[in-house]
C-alpha cells in the first residue's frame, strides 16, 4: 500500500481488508486546520477477488458510494459513480468522482492504473522471502527490486521499497513531481500485481511511458491485465494498446466514460494470447 502527500493533493492506495474510505473525514479535518478545503475526490478500484472478506464500507460498490455521498462536503456537488464493464465479469472498474465548481482538470496529466492477475509462477516466486530468512523488510525489498528488474523500469527514479514476510512487496518510485508504485501479492491461486504511474502528454519522453509499461508488465508476465487511463487526451490510451500487443497481450475489451473531477477514463482489458 502507498500514500503520496503533495501540497494540495493526497493519494492513498491500499489493498487487503483496509477501510480506505474511513480516511476521508480525518483528512478533511486535518487539512482544514491548515486552511485547506477539499475541492475534488476520485475513488477507483477493480473487482475484488474476495469481495465477501471486505469490511464496511467496502462490502459493495453501492455501499461505498453511499458512504462517499454521506461523507463528502456539499460543495462537491458534481458527482458521478459508474462501474465500467469488461468482457470478463471478474474485471470491472469501479469509479466515483466528485468535484466543486472551481476544480479545473489539467488537460495534459495522465494516470495509469494497471492491475495484473495470474502472474507467471516462476517470476512470482521472486517475491517470497527464503524460509527462516532474517533480513529486514527494507533490505529484502532492495534485493527484490534488483533481481526482478523493477529497478530498471525507471532508472531515474529514487526507489523506496519493502518486502513483507513471508511474501509480498511494495515500492514507490519518486522522480521530480512524478510518482510510480508497484504492489505484489505473489501467492499462487490469487496472485496479483499492480503498477501505477503519472505523467504529462507534454513530457519530452512520452515514449518513456510505453517503455515503462512494457518493463513493468514483463516483470510479472500476467495472464490477465487491465489498464485504466485517466486523461483528457486520447493519445495515452491508444499508446497503451500499442505498448502491450508486442508482448503477446491482446485487447479483449475497452470502455470509456467521462467524469467530473477526472475527465475521461478509459478501461482496457488484455489477456495473454497463450490463453
Amino acid at each position, binding site marked *: 500500500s502507498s*500514500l503520496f502527500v503533495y501540497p494540495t493533493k493526497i493519494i492513498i*492506495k491500499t489493498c487487503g481488508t483496509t477501510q480506505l474510505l474511513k480516511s476521508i473525514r480525518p483528512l478533511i479535518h486535518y487539512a482544514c486546520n491548515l486552511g485547506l478545503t477539499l475541492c475534488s*475526490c476520485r475513488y477507483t478500484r477493480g473487482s475484488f477477488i474476495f469481495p465477501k472478506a471486505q469490511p464496511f464500507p467496502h462490502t459493495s460498490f453501492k455501499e461505498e458510494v453511499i458512504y462517499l455521498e454521506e461523507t463528502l462536503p456539499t460543495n462537491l456537488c458534481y458527482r458521478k459513480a459508474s462501474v465500467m464493464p469488461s468482457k470478463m465479469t471478474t474485471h470491472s472498474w469501479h469509479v466515483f468522482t466528485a468535484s466543486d465548481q472551481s476544480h479545473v482538470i489539467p488537460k495534459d496529466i495522465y494516470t495509469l492504473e494497471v492491475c495484473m492477475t495470474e502472474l507467471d509462477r516462476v517470476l512470482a516466486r521472486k517475491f517470497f522471502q527464503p524460509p527462516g530468512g532474517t533480513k529486514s523488510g527494507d533490505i529484502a525489498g532492495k534485493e527484490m527490486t534488483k533481481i526482478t528488474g523493477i529497478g530498471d523500469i525507471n532508472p531515474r527514479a529514487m526507489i523506496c521499497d*519493502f518486502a513483507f514476510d513471508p511474501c509480498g512487496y*511494495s515500492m514507490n518510485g519518486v522522480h521530480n513531481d512524478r510518482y510510480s508504485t508497484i504492489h505484489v501479492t505473489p501467492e499462487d491461486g490469487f496472485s496479483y500485481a499492480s503498477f501505477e504511474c503519472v505523467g504529462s502528454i507534454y513530457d519530452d519522453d512520452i515514449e518513456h511511458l510505453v517503455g515503462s509499461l512494457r518493463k513493468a508488465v514483463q516483470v510479472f508476465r500476467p495472464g490477465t491485465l487491465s489498464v485504466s487511463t485517466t486523461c483528457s487526451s486520447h493519445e495515452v490510451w491508444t499508446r497503451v494498446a500499442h505498448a502491450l500487443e508486442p508482448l503477446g497481450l491482446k485487447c479483449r475489451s475497452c470502455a470509456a466514460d467521462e467524469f467530473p473531477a477526472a475527465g475521461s477514463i478509459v478501461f482496457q482489458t488484455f489477456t495473454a494470447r497463450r490463453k
Partner: protein
Amino acid sequence: MAMSGFEGFEKRLELHFFGDDPVMVDNNLGLRLLGFESLEQVLNAVQCTVVSAVANQYFDAYVLSE
C-alpha cells in the same frame, strides 16, 4: 470462492484541496505540513501503518503495511 486469501486489488483514493495562502502552496508545503502523528491517525482509521518513507522537494511518499 469459499476460502479467502490476501486481497491484492487495491482501493485508491485521490483528494485535491485548495487554500487561500499562496505562500504555503508555492513553497511546496500545504498538506506536507501535516504532522506524522496526524498521518498516523488517518492511517489508523484505514487500518495500516507506515513501514518506509522517502521524500523530495515536491512530495512525500510512504510505503504502508498491508
